[in-house]
């Protein structure tokens, strides 16, 4: 353990673990080009680009995609606002009920998604609220708060309180201090948190099945295709595009926050 070189066994275990996490996703890329459209035959009998055109001309895919983007954008904005406020309060001082607040923020993600889903559904049911675009957003924003909160609270802890005091001593009021001292310090954490919240909402399916009426977000569309396949190759193409599209913000968040000692990850 003293040496800086890992043992061979550890290297192999770590490498195999990484391979296990990536090979299944890579497989999707091969299947998107297969000529075979009835089963999941491996190896693919031939390769074709035909299904990309077919997918491009499917209005249901476009509708689902646009709904997902709208829901994710609005949920992210709400989560950014609420999560930052909460993080600011919790990291600033110790107060009665502080633990309760942080528990309440974590709860929507610590409890199984189906609990959040069925809870919201029974609440809508008891209150006679019809399902709509906004019921989806309500659910998504609730569990997105924690991602923003986690990122923001970590950064607030690292931002020294004396910076704020110095700013006030120099005559700035709270709002100016926020605008010129606090915001530049936490902006990358908020950006990362926002991106992750977007990705979380964009991908959410379990809560959404309980809070959506007739609307189909992209994950719901995919779920339909998984349970009752209509045109498998189209699903393959959509799956590949979704993978590529989600990779971009993650890579972006990584390069944006690289160099700071924070990790954009949700787990931190």
């Amino acid at each position, binding site marked *: 353990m003293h040496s800086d070189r890992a043992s061979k066994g550890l290297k192999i275990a770590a490498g195999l673990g990484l391979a296990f996490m990536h090979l299944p996703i890579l497989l999707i890329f091969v299947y998107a080009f297969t000529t075979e459209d009835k089963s999941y035959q491996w190896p693919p009998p031939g390769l074709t680009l035909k299904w990309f055109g077919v997918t491009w001309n499917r209005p249901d895919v476009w509708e689902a995609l646009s709904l997902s983007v709208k829901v994710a954008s609005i949920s992210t904005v709400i989560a950014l606002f609420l999560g930052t406020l909460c993080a600011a309060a919790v990291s600033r001082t110790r107060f009665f009920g502080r633990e309760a607040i942080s528990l309440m923020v974590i709860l929507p993600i610590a409890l*199984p998604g189906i609990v959040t889903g069925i809870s919201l559904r029974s609440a809508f049911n008891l209150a006679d609220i019809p399902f709509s675009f906004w019921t989806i957003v309500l659910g998504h924003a609730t569990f997105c708060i924690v991602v923003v909160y986690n990122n923001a609270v970590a950064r607030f802890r690292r931002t020294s309180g004396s910076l704020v005091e110095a700013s006030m001593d120099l005559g700035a009021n709270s709002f100016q201090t926020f605008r010129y001292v606090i915001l530049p310090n936490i902006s990358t954490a908020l950006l990362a948190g926002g991106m992750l919240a977007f990705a979380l909402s964009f991908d959410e399916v379990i809560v959404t099945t309980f809070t959506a009426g007739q609307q189909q977000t992209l994950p719901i569309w995919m779920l339909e295709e998984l349970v009752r396949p209509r045109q498998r190759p189209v699903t393959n193409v959509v799956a590949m595009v979704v993978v590529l599209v989600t990779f971009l913000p993650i890579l972006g968040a990584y390069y944006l926050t690289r160099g700071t000692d924070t990790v954009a990850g949700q787990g931190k």
Partner: protein
Amino acid sequence: MSDVILDTDRKGILTRISDTLWRNPRLTILLLLTPPALWLGVVYLGSLFALLVQSFFSIDEFSGLIIREFTLKTYAELFTPANFDIIVRTVLMASAVTIAAALVSFPIAYYAARYAKGKWKAIFYLGVMLPLWSSYLVKVYSWKLILAKEGILNWLFETLHLSWLLNAYLSLPIIGGNSLSVSWTGTFLVFLYVWLPFMILPIQAALERVPRSMMEASGDLGATPAQSFRHVLLPLALPGVIAGSIFTFSLTLGDYIIPQIVGSSRRFIGQAVYAYQGTAGNIPLAAAFAVVPIVIMGIYLWVAKRKGAFDAL
């Protein structure tokens, strides 16, 4: 920031508000907390409360209508053999997935935290983040492709002339089945795959927080590497493992999509909740079922908190 002109006149309205806030930290906290507390309190806790209320209602067996009167009848139904089996099955699966995830995660997290440097650090970081943030359904779908009868795994076994091994495994009771995609082994593999990054990240975070000097001190005091690992590193990594297990356990308890797509026809809690609230229209029983994971996670979180797992989140 030299171009920022600050308002030195202490009479502006913003300044006065700001001064009041600075003098009354309690007021500031109150103002900061009100919006998120209202949102979470009304939307989330309110909904949980609605769920709890529903679980004490019951359904009229003849008319199928919900009787809005307090009763424990619905909870009693959870303990009928069929329903109780569902609960036991789900908890066992969640435990198996959690343990397996911890075992698979540890080497990855350990290597990434203590040995990976420079380029490899980045590769390991992205190597965990990309699968974590890839679409959940796409990941499940990829396993449907892998486990399918005509899929890559069967092809691999055939090419290696090992089909007999696979068939022998599938003929085992409980974990086997007609094919991998309709067996619990399949369900288990998909759960493990999908939740793995949730375990790696907290373990890695916990391991990175262990100061290198502590391991060196342990070595200097005569411990063998194995002893240092066992008595210094492992206890310090434990909160990370527990934090990760909160995710893997909770996510498995509440999932209804994975066992529906890859797995046998025997249900898990999530599927029961979904089926009862949907076609059966028995929201009280669905609610009572949903209370089960809440109670289990409540106990779990309470234990985790005592072990200091929240610091590793």
